[in-house]
């Protein structure tokens, strides 16, 4: 009793001190998981739940299973992705057809839904609405859709029927771009959705299997396409598309030779991706693909952000994975941090 009282007073005191020392009032901590990196772990395949790993911004501390420990429940089978709004994070459990909204800094669950989800994949928040890509049934290429929810309450709003295999989704202005990777099949489209009417305004053809999307500082949409894999029986190779978001016309495209690139990211005016097991850097103004890599390492997923390269390693898919963090400047391995099972996504809080 006494100890807890002392601790409580110390805590109050420290909060007061921090508040007093700082003239910016927003410096009050918003939660345990503010300022750091979040890793979405898909979880054991078949059964079991996905989990979220938190890594502090200085990489010194990390915690696995933060959703579970805060909320004492599981997210669901195969945590596919996390999307963010100002205050919230949206977790998608693919196999469980479940969408959970949490406070992005405390990870306290606010609301969840299982309505109108069928193989949900990725999501984006725009103008108070949450847009979720859904593959629908694996055997049906005509039932794929974007389900739309109120971003605050997760009340179902409507669905937008789209081309098959909608995967990554990104928003700029009042427009949403959806990459149709193809689901269990292979597709080569980008849907342009007008958020005012919630309808598909245009479909842009790109290379086979568009796997990642970024928007650069000049508002160009970059689409990295992996091409069809060898085991598809009709192998094609990667392409990088640059699309003008004001006209929705393809500005240029570059072809990879004999490879399947993935994981495009954009930071500090440069593009990054992985190809042939190595990491490449490219200027947005470059008219050709880079010939030399910057790092001879690769990951299940790759994210380059603010001076660091994050590579996730899923090991044998049945044990704890890890994330390797390289300094972008020196290319030195700064840290290796153990994660949950199958770390699939890297996000920043």
């Amino acid at each position: 009793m006494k100890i807890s009282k002392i601790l409580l007073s110390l805590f109050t005191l420290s909060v007061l001190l921090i508040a007093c020392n700082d003239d910016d009032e927003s410096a009050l901590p918003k939660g345990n998981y503010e300022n750091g990196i979040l890793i979405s772990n898909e979880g054991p395949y078949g059964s079991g739940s996905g989990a979220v790993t938190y890594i502090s911004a200085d990489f010194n501390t990390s915690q696995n299973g933060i959703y579970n420990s805060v909320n004492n429940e599981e997210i669901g089978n195969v945590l596919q992705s996390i999307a963010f709004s100002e205050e919230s994070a949206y977790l998608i459990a693919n196999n469980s057809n479940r969408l959970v909204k949490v406070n992005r800094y405390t990870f306290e669950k606010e609301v969840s839904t299982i309505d109108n989800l069928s193989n949900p994949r990725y999501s984006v928040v725009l103008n108070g609405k949450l847009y979720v890509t859904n593959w629908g049934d694996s055997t049906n290429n005509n039932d794929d859709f974007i389900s739309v929810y109120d971003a605050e309450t997760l009340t179902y709003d409507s669905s937008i029927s789209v081309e098959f295999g909608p995967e990554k989704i990104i928003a700029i202005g009042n427009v949403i771009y959806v990459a149709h990777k193809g689901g269990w099949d292979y597709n080569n489209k980008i849907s342009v959705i007008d958020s005012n009417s919630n309808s598909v305004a245009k479909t842009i053809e790109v290379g086979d299997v568009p796997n990642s999307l970024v928007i650069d500082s000049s508002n160009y949409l970059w689409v990295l396409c992996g091409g069809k894999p060898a085991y598809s029986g009709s192998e094609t190779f990667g392409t990088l598309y640059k699309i003008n978001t004001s006209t929705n016309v393809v500005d240029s495209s570059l072809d990879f030779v004999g490879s399947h690139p993935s994981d495009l990211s954009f930071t500090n005016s440069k593009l990054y991706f992985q190809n042939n097991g190595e990491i490449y850097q490219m200027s947005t103004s470059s008219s050709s693909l880079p010939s030399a890599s910057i790092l001879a390492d690769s990951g299940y997923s790759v994210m380059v952000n603010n001076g660091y390269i994050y590579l996730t390693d899923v090991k044998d898919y049945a044990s704890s994975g890890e994330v390797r963090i390289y300094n972008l400047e020196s290319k030195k391995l700064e840290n290796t941090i153990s994660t949950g099972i199958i770390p699939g996504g890297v996000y920043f809080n």
Partner: protein
Amino acid sequence: MVRYILVSFFVLCWCKGFAQMDSVQNLNVVSLQTIKLKKHSKGYKIQSLSDSIILKNSTSFSSLIRFNTPIYIKEYGAGGTSSASFRGTNASSTAVVWNGININSINSGQTDFNSFSVILNDNIDVRSGGGSIEFGSGAIGGTIHLNDELAFNKLIENQLITSVGSFDTYNTLYKFSFGSDKTAVKFGVSYNQSENDYDWLGYDLKNENGAYNNLSFNLGVAQKLTKYSALRFYSSKYNGHREFSGTLPNPTAANEKYKDFNFRNLLDFNFFKNNFSHTVKLAYLTQKYQYFQNKNLETHNYGKSKEGLIKYIFNYKISASSNIESYSEFDFVQGSTDQMVARNRKQISQSVIYNKQFGALVSLNTKIRKDWNSDYKIPFIFALGAEVKPVRNTYARINGSKNYRVPTYNDLYWPALGNLNLIPESSLQGEFGLGYKTNEVKLDLGFYYIEAKNKIVWTPGGDPDKPGIWTPINVAEAVNKGVEFTIAVNKEINKHLFNFNLNYSYTIAKDKRSNNYLTYVPKHLANGSFGYSRKNFSAFYQHLFTGKVYTTTDNVENYTVPYFNVGNLGVNYKIMNTSKQIVAVGAKVNNIFNESYKVIPGRPMPNRNFNININYKF
């Protein structure tokens, strides 16, 4: 289907007629197949599950094995896919043997323990330890034998068992047996169905999408041809339909459906005269599965296989205490899936077995086998087994063997991913056991050691030419060691009959490279039963303890399935017990303590549930 219903109706009428002509005899049938198996298994532990044990867990083969044998059953929710881990080995290292024929799937190398109708077979033997010499691929941890008995006894018997249980579970079995000096006929039909929508304890959820039904037929005919020869025919047909239940936290996401069809036929001709015996076996087996990702749609994945087998067994009795046997086998397999075109595989095998008895003290089996397969090289294998009886009622047993598990069709031929360079997994094992046996007490304690190499594992980037792509490679090595302890006690005190059974197994199974425990292998597993009967009343209690299992290869504590205890209680009363008719009624409470437990993460197992049954023999 209609044809089968007609046939069963016909048989039903036919036997009804017989039943009126003759009186029912209740014979304590000794299993001939078990005797034969034991003769070839000196030094091995064999546990027989009689029909009275089978009846106690008549609704699920997984439950039957789980509550009565040392085998760990990995069941994806009650009624879902279910596989065995015997002595810590994986699902394809337990061979299921139907009337002497290995029936593990060609495509997956495994047998699904929820794709059987339990009570149709007359008895089940569980043999611990390697047995590839007699039972081929996958007989590594042990073998499970489903036996149909055809005996030349004077007998006409009908048996009708029907039960009703919680979650709309209905089971019906009808079995007809006819026997004379020269002919034996057996026919059985079984139909089981359940909504299987049990509550998930501790959650406001149900086991959604878990319904199942299955229909199966068994037919056996034996005919003595001459004084020295007999012909036997066995046929079994199974048609199962299951939904695959969902997982926490949203079971309503589950939408899958699975159908499987098995058809097995075996013709066995036996000729014996003086010191020679010749047996020719012809088998034809087909399997087919259909997997529907969306149960409401017709589109599905499938796999099917056909297998033809010719076996010639020659036995020469050298002396009263020794004999030599030769097994020659030709096996032809054709398998395909929606992903792969039909592929043929041929295999020729030759085994020689020498059995020797040194008085009452020592009995010995020595066996060797060589296979020639059209796809890959199979190692030369051997087995040795011996039993020594130094003191009355006690024995020491010892065995050692090399066994193998061949790559499955999926491993070899999966488009663009399969690996044609795979070789069979092989394992070397040894066991030492001590036992004590009287009419009242049976006790066996065994220590075993299994070393497996070239284990096939699907590995991302397994093929350096295909980075990031999952391919199967011969990579893993494992060491399994442990203890199996069994005790069975039958005691009669003033017409009160008591029986007690206990299986305990201690298993250490580790990956040799990482030195981590293998996943889904409990270190401690114990099950036991206590039975009581007096006159027409009987009662039993069954208990299962399953220790903690790791689910990740690096043994992370966050991803374990905790230990659990489950108990079942049953009572039976024979309301009529004459030489012509027996009518018994029974009731059973499964999971009587309403324990919340899981075998697989995210998949709660059934809460407390009830079953009432009638068993009518006439």
